[in-house]
């Protein structure tokens, strides 16, 4: 492979072709397995690591800390509110976050003072937050409503644009697989599920379908004049479309993943937990899974759905016969 452009050229003309459609049983099995694993992992791990927004509790942020070790924070909370179990995290340079179960007002003040003393900062540097569990539930509920509304609207939009509901169906089946697998990987990482992570998931909806629409548009173009030719079957046309957009798919996912990866690594290694890290992990996984899903699951699924149509089945039969027949000898 001397160059991606040459490779792309070979993909374009069909000289080089990867079998996305023919091997679909394999891809479907892998997808099914991943979805199954993603459903099992959270159960095996005892559910998701839900953030404070979902459990409810008090949160303290201590700024301008010189010593960012966890010990003093835990000791301070236990001295002021013995029965509560603190989670102390270093969330940014010189900044500590302390999360506890819900505290009373008095306890909150005591813990804040104890934390200020423990980390040797003034009381102004300690801020406290109370987060009700309903907040997280509210976010998830809204996210779920958003998901349902979006799926319905986008299915209509795609059905209208592509003039076939089968593309909508394939796209949305793939989308759900993407969401489940992303959630599974998220669960595996043990990162907290925060509202930011939920936003990340919702963005994946957009990205994954975006990617699918680009590839499906090429499929639409390639199969528009299907019956006017007998060189390729429907499945072969779809396969050609996937191959022809392969360079685009790779380039786009790399370009989309690069900035997200840079947030993820800066977020995870320099900042610790926070909006940026939670969001970028969900997005990082979602972009990769979403791109793969389009190629290996959504497009082959669409081909499978359409090939059942009698007219297309007849066409496939005709092309197969022709392809099986000995090729006319070249002059």
């Amino acid at each position, binding site marked *: 492979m001397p160059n991606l452009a040459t490779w792309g050229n070979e993909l374009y003309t069909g000289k080089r072709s990867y079998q996305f459609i023919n091997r679909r049983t394999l891809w479907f099995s892998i997808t099914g397995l991943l979805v199954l694993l993603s459903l099992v992992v959270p159960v095996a791990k005892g559910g998701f690591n839900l953030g404070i927004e979902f459990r409810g509790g008090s949160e303290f*942020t201590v700024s301008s800390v010189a010593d960012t070790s966890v010990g003093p924070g835990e000791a301070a909370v236990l001295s002021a509110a013995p029965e509560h179990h603190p989670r102390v995290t270093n969330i940014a340079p010189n900044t500590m976050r302390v999360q506890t179960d819900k505290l009373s007002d008095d306890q909150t003040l005591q813990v804040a003072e104890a934390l200020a003393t423990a980390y040797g900062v003034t009381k102004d540097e300690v801020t406290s937050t109370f987060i009700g569990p309903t907040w997280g539930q509210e976010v998830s509920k809204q996210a779920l409503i958003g998901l349902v509304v979006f799926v319905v609207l986008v299915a209509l939009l795609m059905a209208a644009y592509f003039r076939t509901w089968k593309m909508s169906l394939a796209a949305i089946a793939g989308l759900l697989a993407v969401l489940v697998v992303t959630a599974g990987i998220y669960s595996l990482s043990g990162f907290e599920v925060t509202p930011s992570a939920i936003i990340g998931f919702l963005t994946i909806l957009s990205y994954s379908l975006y990617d699918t629409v680009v590839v499906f548009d090429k499929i639409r173009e390639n199969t528009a004049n299907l019956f006017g030719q007998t060189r390729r079957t429907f499945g072969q046309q779809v396969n050609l479309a996937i191959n022809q957009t392969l360079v685009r798919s790779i380039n786009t996912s790399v370009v989309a993943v690069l900035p997200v990866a840079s947030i993820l690594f800066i977020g995870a290694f320099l900042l610790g937990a926070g909006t940026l890290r939670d969001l970028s992990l969900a997005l990082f996984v979602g972009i990769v899974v979403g791109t793969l899903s389009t190629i290996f699951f959504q497009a082959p699924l669409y081909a499978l759905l359409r090939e059942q149509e009698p007219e297309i089945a007849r066409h496939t039969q005709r092309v197969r016969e022709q392809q099986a027949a000995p090729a006319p000898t070249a002059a």
Partner: protein
Amino acid sequence: MSTTGPIRHARRALLWLGVIFILCGAILATGVATGKTTWSPKLALDLEGGTQMILAPKVQGGDAATQEQLDQAVEIIRQRVDGSGVSEAEISTQSGSKVVVSMPGVPDAKTRELIQASANMEFRPVIVSGAWQATPEEERTPKKDLPKPTAEPANASDTNWIDADLWQAFEAYDCSTELFSGETTSGDPAKPLIACEPGTMAKYILGPVEVPGTDIADASFGMTQGSTGFSTGQWAVNLVFNGEGAARFADVTTRLVQQTGAQNQFAIVLDGQVVSAPTTNNVIADGRAQITGSFTEESARALAEQLKYGALPISFEIQSEQQISATLGADQLRMGIIAGLIGLGLVAVYSFFQYRMLGLVTVASLVVAGVLTYAAIALLGWAQNYRLSLAGVAGLIVAIGLTADSFIVYFERVRDELRDGRSLPSAVETGWKRAKRTILASKAVNLLAAVVLYIAAVGNVRGFAFTLGLTAVADLIVVFLFTHPVLQLLARTRFFGEGHRLSGLDPSLMGVEPLYRGAGQVRRYSADAGAARTKRNAAATSEAVRRQTIAERRKAEQAAASVKETDNA
């Protein structure tokens, strides 16, 4: 169709982009010059520090609050928060069921109470009215002359409500001090109340509540009409009570109309402050009252709205309260921006690796999109008070990838057309026509997601959704008004048009025989080369032709014809 067509189109598009930039810049510059805004976007509280409270309304009787009720609730809370001296608070409704109060700094217990309490409107009869200030010590009623109730009060207007303690409190009550402290409360509805009316600078002793605000069915304002039906030019507030309220109000007015002096007045009290204390001229039996006086349109509207709040028995529960210190925000913002710049740098390197000099077009387009987005955020910050939150910054960084994709889709299409053996100018035109469809369809999905997310979202999810939507629009503008026109122009340069090795559009890499084979050879299809080219690409071309729609085919034929013209020219 002459070849100057695309060039003219490209110049016009770039001109439009320039106009957009100059307009944005000019508007922003005017704003900055007049001190109304700044060059930098406004930052949300999470980046600047402050407190965000999410309030869940609790309606009496357990019904869900309607959007209208919520909007009114926002007005009430805004009045309360502003009244207690906290400035720059942001209050908004969210997803039709929440009220979000965000304010810089940390709210004290008093502010928190103010925000949570329900709007309490009530109608009380006036017993005594007095001066705004406290009576000077030496002029106060001596102890022996203090009023002593002679009997149990017969009705709400009875002076027997006033005992020595109440009278002393009334004399000592200083409206300016009390209102400034923000501690006026509604008090026990069954007991008399001392209250002030800021509008007329009056101070009253009011009787117990006679009609609660919840009995108001509706309030409106308008011009009063004379007997002939013509407008008299006087503003009035119209009040409609529900059945129970109408009966109660009829009783009150029947009694008050016979009274004289201050006792003829009834006071409309909102949160312990007298909004208005009109005199009673008639018995109002049908529950439809009209309040007239020296109203202006504005004050009439204000009173009507306040009366409506009276019908709004909503209190609030603080569902979550988040304090974000600015130091943390600044740190996260800095890291976020660094991450974005690194991401952009990586994208630039990758684009160059993939598309050579064409990668520069990608980077330039991203920069243009970035500037456009920045201007939009700064302008929206001014016009709509849009503030950039950290989630929004994340949205911007994520958008780099989504924006770059439109260019990739476009460039790949152009390459496909080159593979079919087209010349670059014609490949750019045909590729664009196909890419345009794909870009529009896929951006529609993005926009739809952003809109749904924005509408359904709570908290800072909205900032993220808004930013995503904004960048999708910016992307469309850039790809139509910058990337495509620039490529149209570049296609006519020697460097790109002749498929320089570094141009990223080198036909030899596309499986096409180079048109330019070295110095001295004229760039023109020879009869042989043309034939060879046709042969070599016959399969691919016929394939492409077969896949074309009728419209596409016609366009292609036209384009081919025009190319031929130039080649032969």
